[in-house]
């Protein structure tokens, strides 16, 4: 049981981690591109990289943090224009090829050593260490110094942390989730605002119980401290509010129309190019924000925000459900937590002399990625709408 608790512990850390939130932000942007507008942008990592570089370089060179944020967003904005102007008039395949090529070019430029001035700015393949730009952000923290454990009152405090308590707790969690799903599917007679409120309450309670069962303790400030986590998830919440507003508006409706049939939209007098460009820009800005948040607790390394990151974003998006509000967040959570879970499980059971020993320490993380690759394939084949998506809306065939 201790092994399992450890795995759960690492899963929980990953769940609240600011990098998970950062990727969720980028996936929200990708959702606008691909989920709502049908734009096949396979270069979201480049937007993240632009945000990260813009922010980090500005702060590293001594400018204010806010200027760094503005520059990062501006770079993403310009990049979207540069990408969009030539390609949005072309067929979907071409946008895919151009975005993926552009993302690679950005990565190559970032890691290049050829031009000294560039290398001085970007740090080449090693990138920019987090300490160079993290300071001003960490200083903003208004949290008191020290450690906090979420939840302070946890399973250790009940019956000395016995296994029975934990088992009961997990059964409760499963029950709550089942209840939420049923209410969400409308099978419990609730509708409209009452349904939303009940689901929200259930989710909060479930989260509390999970924290009770798997408490997470961390510093208040400092890398991966609660301040970073707090800001990251706050940004995600703000992002969700914005997306909610956008998609419920006529603009959001126009996005979906463009995804459906561009010619039909043109015949209704809509400027399809402008709509696609706006979607590209907005999604790109979200990506840049995600990139900035991603590198704050870590470092700016171009290879970490390369093509595989875009693929992970797609996996998260499809897992959670494209063209839904909560899909990107849910998908990101499940993706990253799931990855940690697979690594944890294979480390404990497949890589140790206690059980089976078929792989070494490095291989477990590779194994996790193999599982992810296969999972993506199965997901797209058998359940393209993911968890929250609407099946009718998402039989996509561009």
């Amino acid at each position, binding site marked *: 049981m201790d092994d399992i608790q450890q795995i759960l512990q690492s899963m929980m850390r990953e769940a609240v981690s600011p990098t998970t939130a950062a990727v969720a932000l980028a996936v929200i942007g990708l959702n606008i591109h691909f989920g709502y507008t049908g734009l096949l942008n396979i270069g979201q990592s480049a937007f993240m990289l632009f945000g990260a570089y813009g922010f980090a370089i500005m702060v590293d060179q001594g400018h204010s943090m806010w200027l760094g944020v503005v520059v990062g967003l501006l770079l993403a904005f310009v990049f979207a224009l540069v990408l969009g102007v030539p390609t949005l008039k072309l067929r979907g395949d071409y946008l895919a090829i151009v975005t993926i090529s552009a993302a690679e070019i950005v990565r190559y430029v970032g890691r290049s050593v050829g031009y000294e001035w560039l290398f001085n700015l970007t740090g080449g393949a090693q990138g920019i260490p987090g300490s160079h730009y993290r300071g001003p952000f960490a200083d903003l923290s208004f949290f008191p110094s020290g450690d906090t454990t979420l939840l302070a009152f946890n399973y250790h405090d009940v019956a000395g942390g016995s296994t029975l308590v934990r088992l009961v707790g997990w059964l409760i969690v499963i029950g709550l989730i089942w209840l939420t799903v049923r209410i969400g599917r409308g099978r419990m007679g609730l509708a409209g605002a009452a349904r939303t409120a009940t689901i929200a309450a259930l989710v909060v309670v479930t989260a509390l119980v999970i924290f009770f069962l798997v408490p997470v303790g961390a510093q208040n400030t400092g890398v991966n401290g609660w301040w970073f986590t707090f800001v990251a998830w706050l940004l995600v919440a703000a992002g969700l509010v914005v997306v909610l*507003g956008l998609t419920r508006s006529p*603009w*959001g409706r126009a996005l979906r129309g463009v995804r459906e049939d561009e010619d*039909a939209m043109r*015949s209704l007098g809509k400027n399809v190019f402008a709509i696609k460009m706006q979607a590209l820009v907005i999604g790109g800005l979200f990506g840049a924000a995600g990139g900035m948040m991603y590198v704050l607790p870590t470092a700016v390394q171009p290879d970490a925000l390369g093509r595989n990151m875009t693929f992970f974003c797609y996996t998260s998006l499809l897992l959670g459900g494209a063209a839904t509000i909560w899909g990107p967040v849910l998908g990101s959570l499940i993706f990253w937590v799931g990855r940690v879970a697979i690594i944890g499980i294979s480390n404990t059971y497949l890589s140790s002399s206690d059980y089976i020993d078929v792989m070494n320490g490095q291989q477990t993380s590779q194994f996790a990625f193999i599982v992810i690759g296969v999972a993506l394939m199965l997901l797209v084949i058998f359940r393209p709408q993911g968890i929250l998506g609407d099946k009718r809306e998402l039989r996509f065939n561009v």
Partner: protein
Amino acid sequence: MSDSMSPTATATAGGLADPAARRRLMSGVQPEPGSSKPNPILKVDHIVRQFGGMTAVDVEHLEVQRGIITALIGPNGAGKTTFFNLITGFDRPTSAGQGAHWSFDGANLDRTSASRVAKSGMVRTFQLTKALSRMTVMDNMMLGAQDQAGENLAKCLFKPFWGAQEKQVEAKALELLERFKLLDKRTDYAGSLSGGQRKLLEMARALMSDPKMIMLDEPMAGVNPALTQSLLGHIQSLRDEGMTVLFVEHDMHVVRHISDWVVVMAEGRLVAEGPADTVMSNQAVIDAYLGAHHDTDLGDDALLSDAAFEQIEKEVAQEDAEREEEEQS
């Protein structure tokens, strides 16, 4: 040639509901391809479209009269749909920039894009309906309205900017849905509608923007006979309210039934124009549709006589001889 293009002239306020009035209006028009109309809403010049070495469309001049129903007919491969696409901005003529010219309701549109054509008041439907299948009927309708403040990215996050307009658009959509008998389907996905219902939806959606001219690409294609009558009724009532209608159609009965003017295309060119009853007996039109047999009932067993076979053999031999002559010359 009276071609006053001012949009306020003539009695289109209220429409030409009276068939006698329509006949009077068109009686003075020459039944020649490319003839000028008393009050044209659309004029096109020198529209040419070539694919490789083949010329698909070559129309020198066409005028479409305001307020009536004009049919565009012709045999398969005549270039009707291509021409349709060219004038609605869904295709670019090879002659663009070299004399191709559009004039709609007094405005020149020399470089058209599909959305600009639609915004200027000329909307179209598609032969294979483009109902936005994975959106609801209501969403389809709401998208039809033009100049929506809520579609502006800067304003869309603030409901006060577009809330009132959205309600107006919704009311209009419900009205049109009711008229086209689609009201109880409004929350269904458009993809779940039947083919005929989708055609009605497309038509209703096209009307959301209060167009001046509606262009229907084979509206009766794939529609069951019962629904055909209903569609015809809708088209006629649109005309009665003052809308100009141009439609491409194959079904001669439909054409004869509702069109006030017919334009015939064959091999990319205009071969005839005129009122429905007379244009059918035009020799050029008959030739275009392959000869004297279009009136023949092919189910008639009397055709299986020896005399009929001999006649056919003679005609075939004659055609072969003519073709050989052409090839040798």
